[in-house]
Each structure stands twice: as C-alpha cells, then as structure tokens.
C-alpha cells in the first residue's frame, strides 16, 4: 500500500518520537477527540493518518520549515503530483500555516497534505520550485495572498493581484 510506503518514507524525518507516536496512532483516536487535542495544545510535528471519508485525504504531515524541502523531495520521489499550495492565517496564534497538497495519478489512492507553521511577523519558507516546477504559480499566489516569502523563488512578483499590489488580502487583519 502506498499509504504505508509514503508514511514509512516520511517517518524518517521525525526520528525521536517515532515509537510512541506510531503506537499511539494505532489506536486511532476518534475524530472529535483528535480535534480537541489539537486545539488544546499546538500540534507537534509528525504524521497523522486521517480518515479519508471524513477529511478527504490520507496523510497529514506537519513538518518544520527546515524539513520542508526534504519532505517534498521524498514525495516527489514517490511519484506524487502537486495539487496546490495555500496558506492559512492563524492570527490568534500569531502563526501562518502553509499547506501543500499532493496526490497520485495511479489508482493507489493516497492524498498527502504537508503543512508547516511559520512565524507571522516574518513569514519565510524555502521554495520547492526546483522539485516541482508547477509550484511556481502556487507559491506566487500564496505570496500574493499572505505575503509569505519563498526564498529562492525565481520570479516572486504578484501573479493574481495587480503588479503594484503591496497588500495581502487573505490575512485576517486585512481591511479593504
């Protein structure tokens, strides 16, 4: 199963808590509990296997910004295609989340979501355009909407917004 394979490959990124976490997840906490847990304490980096029929994806991976490039590289080597990149502004936690969606062309269904949290004041992330050329526009769009700077991006100018746009409309404190 590709889900297992991907999971194994990605687990290499999270060395220490591997044993506990995987054993904890074998029990599969019910959805509500999981959601509540997530709310109480900020989520730790790691892999959560989600119920596809509820969430619409299989693997939910949260990585450190520094690990992002490596994680995407692993995904690329497993023949995933890039679906989209987007951001979420968690203004209360003073953080921004960037979500990368990946899926597969074959019938071995597995949707992988890679998310990473960065500081809201100085949002910076490495670009993944060297791996996925198609990330170019998605990163530019995320830069437009959230002001997240993708370091090393070849052409980080406004894409959907006007050329001279200096505002980021999807920030929660944006006032038109």
């Amino acid at each position, binding site marked *: 199963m590709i889900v297992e394979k991907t999971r194994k490959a990605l687990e290499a990124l999270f060395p220490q808590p591997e044993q506990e976490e995987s054993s904890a997840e074998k029990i599969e906490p019910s959805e509500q509990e999981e959601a509540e847990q997530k709310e109480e304490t900020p989520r730790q980096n790691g892999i959560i296997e989600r119920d596809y029929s509820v969430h*619409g994806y299989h693997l939910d991976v949260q990585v450190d910004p520094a690990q992002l490039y490596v994680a995407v590289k692993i995904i690329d080597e497993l023949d995933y295609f890039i679906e989209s990149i*987007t951001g979420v502004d968690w203004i209360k936690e003073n953080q921004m989340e960037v979500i990368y969606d990946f899926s597969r062309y074959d019938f071995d269904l597995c949707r992988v979501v890679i998310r990473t949290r960065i500081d809201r004041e100085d949002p910076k992330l490495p670009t993944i355009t060297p791996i996925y050329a198609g990330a170019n526009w998605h990163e530019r769009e995320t830069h437009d909407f959230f002001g997240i700077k993708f370091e090393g991006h070849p052409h980080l100018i406004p894409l959907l917004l006007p050329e001279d746009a200096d505002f980021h*409309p999807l920030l929660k404190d944006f006032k038109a």
Partner: protein
Amino acid sequence: MSVPIRLQPDETFILNVGPQHPATHGVLRVKMEMDGEYIVSAETVIGYIHRMHEKMGEIKTYPQFYMNLSRMDYLGALGYSHGHVLLIEKAAGIEVPERAEYIRAITVELNRIASHLFWFGAFVMDLGGFSPLMYALQDREYILDMLERITGSRLTYSYYRFGGLYNDIDDQFIESVKKFIPRMRKSLKKYHKLVTGNIIFRKRLEGNAILSKETCRKYGASSAVARGSGINYDVRRNEPYSVYPEFNFDIPVYHECDSMARYKVRMDEIEQSLRIIEQGIAKLPDGPIMPKKAPKIIKPPKGDYYQAVETARGNFGIRLVSDGTKNPYRLKLRSPTYSNMHLFDETCTGLLIMDALAFMGSLDLVIPEIDR
C-alpha cells in the same frame, strides 16, 4: 519545428499576445519573446479578472457562497457547485438522498457535454474553421434549454443545495434528455466526419506540443491534458465520489501526448458522459430531493476538509478550514486550468506561434476559472 539557432537578445522581439487577443478567449496575456515566428520564451500573465473568491468565501456564510462557484467557470458551472456541496456535506455530516445525487450526476454530465461542445467549437475556430462552432452551439443550446427549464438559468446555475437540490426534475426533462442522447450521438458522428478526419486539422495537431507524463506530474495537470499524455487519471474513477461508482463508463486515455490526443480525449468524453446520463436516467430512484432534517444553519465542526471532483476542466479541489462558526475560516479553491495553463510557458518554447496557440486552445482555458 524547433528553434534552429539560439539568437542574441537583441535579435529577438517581444510579442504581447493578449490581454485582448482572439486566441486567448478572455483576458489572458502571454508575453512571448519571438525569433521570427518561433517562440524563444514565454511568460503567462494572469489575474486580469481576479475577483478574490476565497476572501468572499471567508466573509460569507456557507449557503451564501453557492453562486460564487458557478461564477468561477461559466461553461461548466455545475461541476464546481458539486464539489462545493459535497465538501460541506462531508464536513457538516449531511446525508444526501439518493435521488438528489443521481440528478446531480445527470446534470453535471450534461453540463460537461455542454462545456466540451463549446470547447470543441472554439478550438476549431482557433484553428480557423468557423462552422463547427455553430453546429456545436446548436447542440449546446439544447442542453442549456433543458437545464434552464429545471434550474432557471442558462450558465450560472445555483442548483445544488447542501443536502440536495433546489428543485426536482420533471418528466419533461427526462423526456428531453432521452431525446438528446441519440441526437448528440448523431452530431458526434458529424463532428468526426467534418473535423476529426480532416487532413488539414490532423496535420496541424498531430505531433503538436508534446507533453510528457513527467511534465504533467510536475505541474499537476489533469483532465484531457493529462489523459492525452497517457495518464489514466480521472477523479471520478480514482477517488469515486457521489454516485459515480454505480455507473459503467470508460476513461479515454491516449498516449500520443500531442494536441490531437487531447482533442480525442475530450471528444470521447462526450460519448462517455452520454453513457453516464443514459444509466442515470435508467436508474433514477424515486424519493425526496432534500433530506428530512436539513440543518438550517451550517456549522461544520473544527477541522480541515478536502474534496476533489472531476469538472469539465479537470481535477477541481476545494479545501475548507473550519473553525466551527457559520463562516469558513479558509476556503481554498484549486482550479484545474490554473495548473494546466502553467504548463504553457515551458511547453510552447521553440514552437511556432500558430502551433503554440493551437496548443493553448487544446488546454481548454476558461480565464475566470484561472483567475478566480
């Protein structure tokens, strides 16, 4: 069909194709660096009709966002609405009556045919043939009349509701669909005779703009763009949703990777959609079109939800980040042509301008859907 010599920058010139250009079908601009008629490099500039649907999604309540989806893609609006309602139903846990799902599938497929027909006409018009557009519009008009009778509008339907539908279909609709299927099959034969076999058309498209599987993957292409490159990917099959597992249909795949393959995929899809409609009409169950206890106020529980559907233009994804209130915290719309169009810059390098524009036509672009 390749650039013979790489020239110095001062030996090339910049050609702005668009924002108003007949081949771009909307306000899209491609900045091309040209060496004579050869494209040395191209940069696509989009965003001329960007309307920030995602922000609107955050400001509006869940039901108020219905009509925005149909404004994303004016040719195949129902597919996008379908994705939206499926996502919210999944998130909020609303049961959908079976009849409603069947009617959704039938109308989405009708809409897909209408969209493909328009694409077919516009594509041939890009190549200089006028009459096929008019023939395609006649058939499309028939579909639009049917859909107008049941939904009330011709393009920007807001027909689906969380949990079901706005209106039930009637016998007259079923009758007209039954009449439409043989009519469309006859027209398809005509199109193949008039266009597909035509030597000029074939010479233009065969071998035009080869798109490798790897390029498709790196850009996340879907719909006929991927299927014309030998990728057997259709969300209706790979991630069955709604009542699609009940239907017996094929996913046309061609391995030539050229514009002709993309053309053939879409033409075959019309036939497959007809099959789905035929089966849907035959299997259509009786029953309500809305659940008995549809919630008045939609408040999905906290969390992150994703739904992908196969619209006429490809893999449309919609992500909801809910914070448990009656407004979405974040609503991300992943539009298929956005990824498909992104391919253009890389692929058109080294092509003649007329080949590049034929390739652009084969991508089936709807600009408001790229710009959102």
